[in-house]
């Protein structure tokens, strides 16, 4: 059977993680022509709480639309790390926002740390693009889609006035992760 790659974005409601998942799925399916399913689960709150967005990418049609064993997981908050890092497969990867996730989840997976919110605020200039910084970093970390496809999907979703900001956020996340990977 064909390879199925599962990515989970988790954090607090309002951090744009569902959008990050949608962008990744668009990059995979609309731009790269693979199969992708994006799904999410959320609580009653529109802001706060723990939120997750999952993307399954495959080169053949996807049956089960939810994660089975997660290949790569992002956790932006401690709550989401505690709640959602459990499903990562052996040898998988976890990216955490090191300013917010102090208790690192333990398991048979490799943990990568980046100050994602801080990077968005201080380096890129706006906290609101933290999800795009995280997306850039996750794409660099996983090769789930090409750098170009990811960028194209990001830019197709944002209004004209925010194109440069998002381009910068995506590049920053991608480059920072490449440095970590060495």
């Amino acid at each position, binding site marked *: 059977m064909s390879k199925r790659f599962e990515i989970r974005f988790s954090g607090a409601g309002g951090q744009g993680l569902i959008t990050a998942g949608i962008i990744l799925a668009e990059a995979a399916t*609309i731009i790269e022509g693979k199969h*992708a399913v994006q799904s999410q689960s959320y609580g009653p709150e529109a802001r706060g709480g723990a939120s997750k967005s999952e993307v399954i990418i495959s080169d053949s049609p996807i049956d*089960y*639309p939810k994660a089975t064993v997660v290949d790569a997981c992002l956790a932006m908050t401690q709550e989401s790390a505690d709640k959602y890092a459990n499903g990562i497969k052996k040898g998988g990867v976890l990216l955490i926002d090191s300013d917010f996730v102090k208790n690192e989840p333990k398991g048979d997976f490799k943990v990568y740390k980046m100050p994602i919110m801080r990077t968005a605020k201080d380096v890129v200039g706006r906290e609101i693009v933290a999800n795009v910084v995280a997306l850039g970093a996750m794409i660099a970390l996983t090769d789930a889609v090409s750098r170009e496809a990811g960028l194209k999907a990001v830019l197709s979703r944002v209004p004209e006035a925010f194109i440069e900001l998002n381009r910068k956020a995506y590049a920053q996340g991608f480059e920072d992760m490449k440095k970590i990977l060495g």
Partner: protein
Amino acid sequence: MAKKVALMQGNEACAHGALYAGCKFFGGYPITPSTEVSEVLSKELPKIGGKFIQMEDEIAAMASVIGASLTGDKCLTASSGPGISLKQELIGYACIAEVPCVIISVMRGGPSTGMPTGPGQSDVMQAKWGTHGDHAAIALAPASVQEIFTETVRAFNLAEKYRMPVQVVYDEIVGHMRERIEFPEPGEIEVIDRAKPSVPPAQYKPYDTSFGDVPPLAAFGTEYRYHVTGLNKAPDGFPTTKAEYVDAEERRQVRKVDGEVGRAGIELNDEYLTDDAEIIIFAYGSTSRSARYAVNELRKEGMKVGLFRPITLWPFPEKRIAALGKQVKAIVVPEMNLGQMNLEVERVVKGACPVLHLGRVDGEPINPGQIMDKVKEVK
């Protein structure tokens, strides 16, 4: 020219399917997890001169849809369990008065308010028996974003062809997940429009069975003036308590769907590796996707397992399930409820093989591993 493609939610695809089918009127009321259907249509319908109205409650939404449909428009409403419960009164009205309309039921956990943001499949019996009295039901159960589009189009076609309410029932997972969709070109999928009366206005009767089991429905606002009521009625549409009319009308309204001719135009199933199967998994909606995954895994282990996926849930695929019951060792029915469609499978199989139910109602989907474990319980 390449087809237009998009990554989109099931609920959004539903709204686009409705537009493709020629929907001109939407009456709704906000409820999770179906709201995206109305959000898209509130934007798109006015662009084509269609009407979107958010009514004061679910009952009113259903009423507005029936009223608008009587003027000849193709009409839609969308809701979820608690809202569908409220609509039942007028779903029954649309059944007896024979007014075409489409109802989207996006299933969450229940009963009552239950789990609004979690998936469920516990409203499939509601789609059949929700309203009181004997009546036929058509319910379609798509399992992917693309299929929600095509089944919504088919729901409109069946509503118009059979002159009755048709439900499209799918769980929150397929309603909210995003997948690639290819938009069919106009004309690529069949779109059926309402049959017009062939007799002059003076001779028109809205329930004239000389035209078969589905008499043509004239539109209000034309020269065809007629009466519509929720009471039992004679062929001319006026209330009656005459036994022969009441009996004939009730039987016809059930027969037009459940009779052999009716069924033939409605039933639609998807079978996967059933030819040589010794065990069949009967699954619909998002659960069928877990089941297909499980079938592939179990086949790798050498087990002859197949998937029967009803796309038309109601009328129930009686003949085919009865035949499969005689072919296989067992039928496994996973569904996100505590036992609903398995009762239909049992009823139809009549003991020819064991029927094993796998229910999950904790707000999480049934995963392939659970189905594989259940299949392995078969002796």
